[in-house]
Every structure is written in C-alpha cells, then in structure tokens.
C-alpha cells in the first residue's frame, strides 16, 4: 500500500488523478482497518482548506476535515448548530473523536452516523470537488447510494465542507441517541430536529431519524403534523405515534428488535423535537446573542 499525506488540495487532486482510480481519499481513517484496504491512500486530514469553521450571517461553513472533538468544542457550532455539537460529542469515544472527521462520518455512509443525522436535520449541504476542479453542492441526505455506500466516489471526488444556515432567534436544534452504554456504543436509534418559531407557531421544521433506511431519514408526516401548529400538551402523544407509524424499521442482531426500535423511534422523535422547540423558545427570550 502507498500512503501519501498531502498538504493542500492541489496535491490531493494530483495524487488522485495520477493513480487513475486506484487511490482513495482518507481523512481520520478510523474505519480503515475495518474494511478491505485499498492499494493507495491519499490522506487529506491536514489540508488547511478542510479545517475551517467559518460563520457568515447567512451561512455556517464547517470543513469536512474538522474532527468530531473539534466540532463538539466549537463555540460557533455550539451556538449556531447545537444539534451538530451534541451529535459530535456522542461519536465513538474521546480517542475516536480526536481523529475522526465530519466528512468521514458522512462519506463512510453508516446509516446511523451521529454527525450525519444532525447535519441532515440542520439542512446541511456538502460541497464536493472533482478532479477537473469543478464544485457541486449536494444535500447531505442525497449522498447515500445504499447501506454503507456513499454516492461520493472517494477515488475522484473530495468532500470539502458542509454549508448550513446558522440558527437565528426563534430557532433551535437538538440531537438525541439511545444506546446500551454511554460511550463506545452503537445507537439503537438516533434522532435530530431543527425547529423555527414565528410567535408560538412552528414556521419551519426538519426532523430526522436513523437507522431506518440507508440515509438519515426525514419524518415527513411528523413534520407535516407540526408545521403551522402551536404545540400544546396534547401534541406530543400524536408526534410519538405519527413518527413511529411513518417509518419501517427492521430488527438487527447488531442493535435491537424491530418492536423495540419502533417504540424508540416514537419516543426519541418526540423528545428531540420537544428539546429543539424548547431551545427555539429560549432563544426568543434572547440573551445568548442569537
């Protein structure tokens, strides 16, 4: 195997072009030894262009090479994309989070990757660079070809960064997972939501659950139920029922039975939407700079 650590994007593109499809991009490489080893690897984890966290008024840009530890500790992400900070805090263990990257979490295409679930709920887009220097933007949920298979061809494309709208006043997001242990444990179900209020009415909502299909999955019916509504005490039972009813879950030896997962989908959907909503309400009261 050849392993090349590149220090900029030009070198990365050149190395990929030269290998004519044999080389694969790698960043944190934490899943490298769990699969078949490719013959050539191009390590982009120290390319400065991939490490930035930049905030414009309308757009938060998070480099694909930012580690989960880095994202979890970022004051901007904690304030403007809280679900992402929460999700990143849950990935693997401290040792894994210190090296694994957001880009890898998405391109590795595991169906319940914590950061990816949060990114989809936040409405993030991925910016991809091809070998001819062209860029394309794709919604994160559209990057999944199948279970553990990304549409990103890591022999000819580099995921550069994620773009998302930062939280505004009246908006909140949250991430939750349920797992047998608090660390080093696969989630049985994970969920994330983003809610924007106008007055006390839900003006926009994205609620996402995983793993129920290859990609983190929007809860369309649950979102419809809540959109334009003013949630009250009677809302939450319906949210729980609707969320559980609208996805088709499977049991797995690795995680848990279908029945248990069905129950968890409803409970986590309710809890995460409620938490996002509470944060949206809190942010309207101000004081946190939003």
């Amino acid at each position, binding site marked *: *195997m050849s392993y090349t*650590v590149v220090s900029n994007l030009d070198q990365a593109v050149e190395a990929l072009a030269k290998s004519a499809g044999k080389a694969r991009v790698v960043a944190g*490489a*934490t899943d490298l030894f769990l699969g078949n080893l490719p013959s050539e*690897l191009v390590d982009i984890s120290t390319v400065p262009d991939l490490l930035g966290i930049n905030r414009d008024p309308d757009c938060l840009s998070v480099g694909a090479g930012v580690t989960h530890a880095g994202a979890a500790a970022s004051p901007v992400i904690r304030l403007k994309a809280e679900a992402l900070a929460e999700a990143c805090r849950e990935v693997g*263990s*401290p040792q*894994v989070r*210190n090296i694994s990257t957001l880009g890898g979490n998405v391109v590795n295409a595991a169906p319940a990757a914590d950061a990816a679930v949060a990114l989809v709920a936040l409405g993030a887009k991925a910016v991809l660079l091809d070998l001819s220097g062209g860029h394309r933007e794709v919604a994160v949920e559209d990057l999944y070809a199948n279970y553990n298979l990304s549409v990103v061809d890591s022999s000819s494309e580099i995921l550069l960064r994620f773009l998302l709208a930062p939280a505004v006043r009246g908006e909140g997001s949250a991430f939750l997972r349920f797992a047998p242990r608090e660390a*080093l444990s696969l989630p049985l179900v994970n969920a994330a939501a983003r809610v924007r209020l106008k007055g006390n009415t839900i003006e926009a909502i994205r609620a996402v659950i995983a793993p129920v299909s290859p990609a983190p999955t929007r809860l369309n019916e649950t979102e419809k139920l809540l959109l334009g509504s003013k949630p009250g005490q009677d809302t939450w039972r319906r949210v729980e029922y609707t969320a559980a009813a609208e996805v088709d879950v499977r049991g797995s030896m690795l995680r848990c039975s279908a029945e248990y997962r069905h129950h968890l989908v409803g409970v986590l959907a309710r809890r995460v939407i409620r938490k996002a909503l509470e944060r949206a309400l809190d942010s309207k009261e101000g004081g946190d700079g939003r």
Partner: protein
Amino acid sequence: MKEQVIAFELNGETVEAYTDPALSLLHLLRSRFNLLGTKEGCGRGECGACTVLVDGRAVNSCLVPAGKVQGRKVYTIEGVTAEGLSRGAKVHPLQEAFVESGAVQCGFCTPGMIMSTYALLNDNSSPSPEEVKEAISGNLCRCSGYKQIEEAILEAAQRLKAQDWQDRNTGKT
C-alpha cells in the same frame, strides 16, 4: 506490500521507520520500536488499551495507519515513565497515584488509562469527577470497576499541581 520511510517524533526523539504504511501505529510501536507498554486489546478502537498521544491528543493507536504519523509527535506510556525518571522520581506522579489508589489490578488497561488521563490533565489541570469520567469513557477496565481509577486521576491532578509539574513534552499544537 510496498514499504516507505515514515519519520516522526517518538517520545521526544526523531525516529524513522521503513515500513508498510498500512501497519497500525500500535504494531509499529510494539514490533519496530519494542515499546511494549502500549497494549493491544480489541484491535478495533473499542477498548482504549492502545491509547497513545498524537500531537498531544489521545487516539487509539490500533486505528492509526503508520503512514498517518509522518511528521507528527507520538507520545507513549514509556515517555510518561521517562518524564518521571528525568525528574528524579521512580515513575510519573500519575503512575504513582494509580498504584497507590489501587487503580491497577491486572494492569492491562492501565497504560491506556494513563495516556487518556495525561491528555486530560494537559488540557485541564483541575478536572471535575464528571470530566474525569468523560476523559476515560473510551477506556475499558474489566477488573477494577473504575472507581479507584477515577480517584487515582483526581489524586494525580492534585499531586501534579502541588509539584508544579510541567515540561509536558507532547507537542500539542
């Protein structure tokens, strides 16, 4: 297998290895450098026995391909011990606290626990019990039950502060 030269800093010394870059850092340390303090438990990033510092941050050395440490600073339990010796002590105060608190039983998880602790105390010299738990949440111990380990870490933090222990040679940037 194609081998290549990988140059990095190991416990403060510049070293080179001519190796398959797909060899894990764990196996590189154990087989090429004969540093046997770093343990192999699960070999897949789930137990933390192989924890070392790369550029000052705790990582699972079993998951790191050797090619990745080119130009980086790697710090292992042997470096920690040497730090203690260089100060005229038998071992590092962290190791001492583990022994005296009864935090070592079979000892297999201990080097990894100490490396995670070392990274924690570099960032945070007065961790709360919660922060201690968080810092070792990636390290499994199957005999002591964690309580003594947590106590050892809090005790170590006190001793390091009392002794004004610095010169942390980890290269964290």
